[in-house]
């Protein structure tokens, strides 16, 4: 790729190749269609140009042609749709073994929190060959997390989580852009995606005595007094949270919801919205008391209660840092 006249973006994720293959297919079909129309117009315009002594030949139309050029393009478009939908389905379905990383957007910066406690601003370090899932929210307006080299993009909304996943393939530095207009410095709300070989990444990760995110969450859980009601037995005034993550929950009004990130988040901020069957609406709201970063930590802690028990080292937790204080701290905590 030329440095001054880029014609094709870097391919640095597993998805990039798939998206590009579809894009090339679309380019070919569109190129052929455009050529047919252009050549037909040019050819007919020259061949039947107005000449003395020749009249236009009236033609009413042709049912066969009309049906043909309605139905054939439709089937071609159907191939676009199916192929595009298959890729999209993959884009929107993070593998179960993904490493999770929290992202908080605000005007005009990206704040990244790794599960292991590392924090970064406008920079995201990820290893190659590993599925990474970003769980994102915004503190103010809508932003959009866009990595052209990975061919992925997702709007980041205030008041809820949206997710994004990728598997990086090539080490290097890639652009991170905010793609949803967000105010004055929208165009500078970007940064670097640093893709590293796994060993290098482990080294980077090991730098700095960071507290894992779910540990921060556990501390908060005690500090905020959550632990007095959400006990680890069945005697608490609130539900026991062990093992609930991503499981269906029966609500007081008879509905069933899945206890995903958004549900846990909502239950902290707005506890009376969806009350678990058999419990009273006694929990106070924590809106305005916990920040988005603290919320992420709490959600991470609730999750860890579900993944820790069955087998150690499932989703996202296998990278416990071997905290070695000798290494200098690499990133700054805000």
């Amino acid at each position: 790729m030329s440095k001054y006249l880029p014609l094709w973006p870097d391919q640095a994720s597993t998805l990039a190749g798939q998206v590009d293959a579809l894009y090339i297919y679309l380019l070919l079909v569109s190129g052929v269609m455009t050529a047919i129309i252009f050549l037909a117009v040019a050819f007919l315009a020259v061949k039947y140009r107005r000449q003395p002594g020749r009249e236009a030949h009236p033609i009413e139309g042709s049912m066969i042609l009309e049906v043909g050029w309605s139905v054939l393009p439709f089937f071609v478009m159907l191939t676009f749709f199916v192929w595009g939908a298959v890729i999209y389905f993959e884009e929107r379905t993070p593998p179960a073994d993904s490493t999770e990383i929290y992202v908080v957007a605000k005007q005009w910066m990206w704040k990244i929190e790794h599960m292991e406690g590392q924090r970064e601003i406008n920079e995201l370090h990820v290893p190659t060959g590993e599925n990474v899932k970003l769980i994102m929210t915004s503190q103010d307006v809508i932003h959009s997390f866009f990595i052209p080299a990975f061919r992925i993009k997702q709007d980041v909304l205030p008041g809820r989580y949206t997710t994004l996943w990728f598997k990086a393939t090539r080490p290097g530095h890639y652009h991170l852009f905010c793609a949803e207009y967000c105010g004055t410095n929208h165009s500078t709300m970007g940064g670097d995606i640093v893709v590293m070989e796994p060993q290098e990444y482990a080294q980077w990760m090991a730098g700095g005595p960071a507290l894992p995110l779910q540990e921060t969450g556990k501390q908060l859980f005690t500090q905020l007094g959550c632990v007095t009601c959400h006990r680890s037995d069945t005697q608490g005034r609130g539900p026991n949270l062990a093992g609930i993550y991503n499981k269906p929950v029966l609500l007081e009004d008879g509905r069933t919801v899945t206890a995903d990130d958004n549900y846990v988040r909502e239950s902290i901020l707005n506890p009376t919205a969806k009350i678990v069957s058999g419990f009273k609406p006694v929990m106070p709201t924590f809106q305005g008391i916990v920040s988005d970063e603290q919320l992420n930590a709490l959600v991470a802690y609730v999750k860890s209660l579900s993944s820790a028990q069955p087998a150690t080292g499932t989703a996202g937790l296998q990278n416990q840092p071997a905290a070695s204080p000798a290494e200098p701290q690499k990133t700054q905590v805000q």
Partner: protein
Amino acid sequence: MHTSPTPGAAAGTATMEHEAHNPALLHHFADAQQQKNAASLGMWLFLVTEIMFFGGMFCAYLIYRLNHFNAFAAGSQQLSIKLGAFNTAVLIVSSLTVVLGVKAAEVGKRKLLVFYLVVTVLLGMTFLVVKGFEYNEKFEKHHVPGPSFNFTDTFDDNGQKIPVNSKEAELFFSLYFAMTGMHALHMIIGCGLFSVLAILAWKGHYSPGYYTPIENAGLYWHLVDIIWIYLFPLLYLISRHS
């Protein structure tokens, strides 16, 4: 078959004599029937735009009601069914007087027409006054969205406590004011419209041959009524039992 594209050479002409004695016929219409048909189609189309206009808010209401059911039930609990039902009755009666007014115009009874138009305006104003009392009560209870909004848990008709996030209740009242406010604005326009029509009718502008404005204003009034017929159950009634 048509061969010459020059004016006047068309196969025939369809010039219509302007109907004598009908000053209300505009120059560009062929006859009074065409004019009446155009006006009434225009009015129906305008009503379609009104439905789409309110449709946006109904759509917002339905989605939020699903998302924040408890708060909407509690908010609904704070509205007075009695006043709402009274207003519904007032509007239904006013629709009747409009129909009677149109009938009076059709048969050329001028005084009766003016009477029904005036009664319609009075009924419309009654509705607005009652609405004013309701709004006033919301102010006093701090149920108007904004910095002074205050909402505490309420109890449903069976005495059971409805747990509420006051922020979500604020959302309910935002929609309540947006929807009923927009409806009230339409009522005010309708009252103004009928007042003007009553004056014109008194001066004898309308005849059995020409009363399209009365008919079209009537259509508008019915639509405004129908919107209320939907607002009343949605806002006052259906969320009460949780």
